[in-house]
């Protein structure tokens, strides 16, 4: 479902992705890495938001550069900036997206209602986005990604800013869709969630994949592996924080 070979993306002299290879036939793959490692850039390249400078990509059988519309119909994306409009309410975002993806108004309403209920934002459905909390905005973008029942899901930090109950609901939802054969590719900093949710894991540092494994084959604790391979914890002492408050 997600196949890419030697994907390179540069911004001027800075190489954001330095030759990424991925081959994910299904399941839930988590991409871990520190801020600025290239996680969001990789997601943008895979979803056609950015064109790679080098390499080949195939998502759900489509090349983003040759079949952009077919690709867009096949994928659901929770982008880094959420991709929402302040001039619309939560429910209106789903009303907007449904017909564009070929759903009837009834299908859109039915699926939208169910998604809003599962994500716990049905009571705030008429709130404009500029009056919504970050968590509500993220859930709206997630509902938009799921509405048209995509074949591949790309989620950039889906659990950041989400309350525990909704986080659990989203995890259950992702497990259910993955069990139906939908490939889920997500980035996250919440290692405890990744530990229980992901079936595959990739770690990225400096635009290169430094660790790649099926989750079942990982024998060491994820946190320990992450600190070893990606970035060790910072240890700088801040003495003024140890002194008595003024």
């Amino acid at each position, binding site marked *: 479902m997600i196949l890419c070979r030697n994907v390179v993306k540069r911004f001027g002299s800075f190489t954001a992705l330095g030759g990424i290879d991925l081959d994910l036939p299904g399941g839930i793959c988590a991409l871990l890495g520190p801020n600025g490692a290239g996680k969001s850039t990789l997601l943008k390249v895979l979803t056609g938001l950015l064109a*790679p400078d080098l390499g080949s990509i195939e998502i759900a059988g489509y090349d983003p550069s040759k079949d952009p519309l077919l690709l867009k119909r096949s994928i659901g994306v929770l*982008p880094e900036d*959420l991709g929402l*409009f*302040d001039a*619309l309410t939560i429910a209106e975002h789903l009303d*907007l*997206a449904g017909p*564009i993806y070929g759903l009837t108004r009834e299908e859109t309403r039915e699926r939208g209602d169910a998604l809003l209920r599962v994500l716990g934002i049905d009571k705030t459905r008429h709130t404009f986005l500029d009056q919504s909390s970050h968590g509500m905005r993220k859930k709206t973008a997630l509902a938009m990604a799921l509405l048209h029942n995509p074949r591949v899901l790309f989620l950039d930090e889906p659990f950041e800013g989400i309350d525990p109950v909704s986080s659990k609901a989203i995890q259950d939802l992702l497990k259910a869709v993955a069990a139906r054969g939908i490939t889920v590719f997500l980035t996250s900093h919440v290692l405890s969630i990744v530990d229980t949710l992901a079936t595959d894991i990739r770690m990225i540092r400096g635009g290169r994949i430094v660790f790649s494994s099926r989750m079942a084959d990982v024998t060491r604790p994820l946190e320990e592996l992450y600190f070893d391979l990606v970035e060790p914890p910072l240890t700088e002492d801040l003495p003024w924080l140890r002194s008595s408050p003024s």
Partner: protein
Amino acid sequence: MAALLAILAALRKAIARDLSSFESLKVNNFFLFVLLLIAGTSSVGLPPTSAYPFLLVLSVLILFPMSTDPLAKIPPDRLALWPLSMRQRIALRVTSFLLSPLLWIMALILWRSASLVTMLSYLALALGVQIASATGQKLAGRQPHFQLLRYVPQVPGPLGGLIRKNLRQQLSLLDPYLALVLSIGGGIYRFTSPNVDPAAPVILGLLVALALSTYTQSLFGLDGAAGMTRYRLLPLRGWQILLAKDVAFLVLLIVLVVPLSPLPGITFGLAALAFGHHSSVFLRIPQRRWRFAGGRLLPVGALQAIGGISLGFAESNFGPIVLVWTLLGFGASLFWYGRCWDHSRSGPS
């Protein structure tokens, strides 16, 4: 004292940035027209009385975003958390008013007009607007679901959701309200005046279209980076995305020119869209809500104003064939810049 000065310095910067957003006026097609009107009459030694009604409308509309409390620029929770004494808070409240742009406007009016009545009237109006604005914000705070723009109805069809959003965005600029004032004023004149100049409805219709036209230079100016991401994720062709913008603009334009002279106004609108597609697709001209739209004078602003007015007058002289040709030109622009959008936004670089 240091804390107070730091806050005031931050406020001054925020207000200066806010004022700089009014630079959009310099490149608003309608404001350019008013400036040309003033320059034209002044060059022959006449007072620019013909520009006064337009200046009055502009100055009243500008009051709404400008007459806000400068202290409101600090998030209330942040202000409450800062360790300031009651005396410091009162001092901050008093001195922040000195930073109010309204005071500077008043000083300017006093200095320029030297008319006490004008100054007092404007002050009263500003106070009224500020009270109304504060009351409205309080009411809106109690009823977060209350928003007039909510009542823009759902439009049928696959692009309906986008068209509704685009209509709401356009209605959050000041340009449509300027056009509305002109439309209502022109309509009253047309239907109540015993001796209507036959050319007046055409001219007024074109002025309404001109007042709306700057927005067409930056159709995506209110979508922001997140909105652009969503556009690039939606399975739509470039021409469909542009069409959803254009339909919203034309709906508003048609409603506003109907009481005047619809066909010349629509012809102007189609020409403005055809010329504006280039800058909308290739340039980033961000817009701010509750401000006048800002654009580029050259070449697109000049092309829109001159081309739109010429074609509008041609339509009124030679009939709907001019509108048909303009529609064809608009269609060609939509198709071409739709392709440009497809290649520049979602294709390989």
